[in-house]
């Protein structure tokens, strides 16, 4: 507390005045003769731009620290992750913990590298287990609503927010909360790859509390082992080897079939071309030719322009975190919370939302 007052550049008297606290009360509290009250601490927190929790416990969660120390869109994204993580921690105490489902311990060697497969191999091994998890639920990664599928299968919250354009996404693992934040994008395949990449970070248990990915395709970033593993995971999850081998015949793959495959898998043609080359299913020359096809052209070549347009629109839309939304509403229904946290997640006015919820009583009448 003394440090906070000193860093404000104010005298004790001036600081006391600014937080509407009697100077003698402040002095007594600082000397330990009186305890700061809940209101004192709230006013001090507001003035000092710190949190009440920090004033009491001194704990500064890494996410909060990262949010303060990161500028621009990245900082905004981390702040959002911090807010959502805190909400999860709070509603966990009300009986709604994050339903996080990591991969079983049996696959620990793949995560830790003990099988000697290297980071890319670890990513592939993790993707195989993750794909099996999806298959158990009769789902796959080649589904349009990938955020909902991942939320259901792994218990991680996925939110899409307007935090671009110089930012792809982040994965936050704070306490019991697991959050993926994606930037809205007019390139759906990039957003999907980012989602799979961030899931890879979380499933690998990468030991930082936050992975901020400004540009998932950046060569510099891919030199980092954990980023290489997450990229390998994403590629294997979204473009499974078996599916690729099945699509390529003994004479290779035609442009038309390649376009159909990219559109079906909802991946970028360039990523798919490189992946085919990785498995030696196409040579370098063919890879160069195929990777120049744009996603829009691939969709047009397969008469899927309409679907493509819908996917672009979906990728540009905001998406609240599905599991938090579900649990905030459940807490409201059970009377454990007001409607305000739910309304806040939706960005809605609470009074208007309540009126809307209560008015849907079948009064529309016969049409």
């Amino acid at each position, binding site marked *: 507390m003394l440090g906070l007052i000193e860093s404000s550049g104010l005298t004790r008297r001036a600081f006391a005045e600014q937080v*509407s606290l009697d100077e003698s009360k402040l002095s007594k509290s600082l000397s330990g003769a009186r*305890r*700061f*009250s*809940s*209101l004192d*601490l*709230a*006013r001090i*927190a*507001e003035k000092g*731009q710190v*949190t*009440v*929790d920090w004033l*009491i*416990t001194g704990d500064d969660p890494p996410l909060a620290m990262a949010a303060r120390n990161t500028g621009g869109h990245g900082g905004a994204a981390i702040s959002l992750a*911090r*807010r959502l993580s*805190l*909400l999860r921690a*709070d*509603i966990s*105490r*009300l009986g709604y913990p994050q339903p996080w489902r990591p991969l079983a311990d049996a696959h620990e060697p793949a995560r830790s590298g003990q099988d000697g497969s290297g980071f890319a191999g670890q990513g592939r091994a993790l993707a195989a287990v993750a794909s099996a998890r999806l298959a158990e639920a009769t789902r796959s990664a080649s589904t349009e609503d990938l955020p909902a599928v991942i939320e259901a299968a792994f218990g991680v919250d996925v939110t899409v927010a307007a935090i671009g354009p110089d930012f792809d996404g982040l994965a936050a693992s704070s306490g019991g909360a697991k959050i993926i934040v994606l930037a809205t994008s007019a390139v759906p395949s990039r957003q999907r790859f980012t989602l799979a990449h961030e899931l890879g970070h979380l499933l690998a248990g990468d030991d930082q509390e936050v992975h901020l990915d400004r540009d998932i395709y950046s060569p510099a970033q891919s030199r980092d082992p954990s980023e290489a593993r997450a990229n390998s995971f994403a590629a294997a999850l979204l473009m499974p080897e078996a599916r690729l081998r099945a699509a390529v015949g003994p004479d290779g793959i035609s442009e038309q079939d390649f376009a159909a495959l990219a559109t079906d898998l909802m991946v970028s043609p360039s990523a798919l071309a490189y992946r085919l080359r990785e498995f030696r299913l196409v040579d370098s020359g063919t890879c160069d030719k195929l990777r120049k096809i744009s996603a829009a052209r691939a969709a047009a070549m397969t008469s899927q322009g309409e679907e493509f347009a819908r996917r672009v629109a979906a990728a540009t839309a905001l998406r609240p975190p599905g599991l938090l939304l579900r649990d905030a509403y459940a*807490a409201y229904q*059970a*009377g*454990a*919370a*007001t*409607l*305000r*946290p739910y*309304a*806040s997640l939706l960005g809605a006015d*609470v*009074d208007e939302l*309540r009126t809307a919820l209560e008015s849907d009583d079948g009064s529309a009448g016969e049409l």
Partner: protein
Amino acid sequence: MTEFLFPDNTVLCNFAEVDSLDLLTSVLRGRGRWTEAVAYEARRSARVLPPLTSLVTGQEFGEPIEISADADVLRVERLRRAVFGGAEDEPLRHLGEAQTCHVIETWPELAGSWWISDDREALRYARFRGITTRETIDLVAMAVADGEIGPKDGHALMQRMASAGRHLRLPASAADLAR
């Protein structure tokens, strides 16, 4: 056991808006209490509603209840955020609600106290938690029952509150207040 009555700041403002705080205090009969955050909110509201000044400087609600134990402060902060939807970086937002709810729920000497509010969310939550709730309309009905004000005047008083932009549940007629 004495039952205390904890009006929130919006209720105080309702009566201050129509210059009828004397009616409120007579209904409360010395049982009114407030937490320090509600007293603070009232002090701020007094800048635009001068009748509140007498309440803020007087002793009608006793000394504002301070919450100082670390565990209590942390619980209030979590209630404020998780239940009432206050943001971490707006530490004063919904603090009065969280403090009031906390002390009624967990301090034995205040068990059974009533929480008086016109906020639908706060009322709903409090009822789920087993806290007795009342609204401004109930206080005016109590004043009518006590003979402090006639039903028609009570009805007119509440209409004036609403006309001044206050958000509260209104009686359909004067007869509704004579329950």
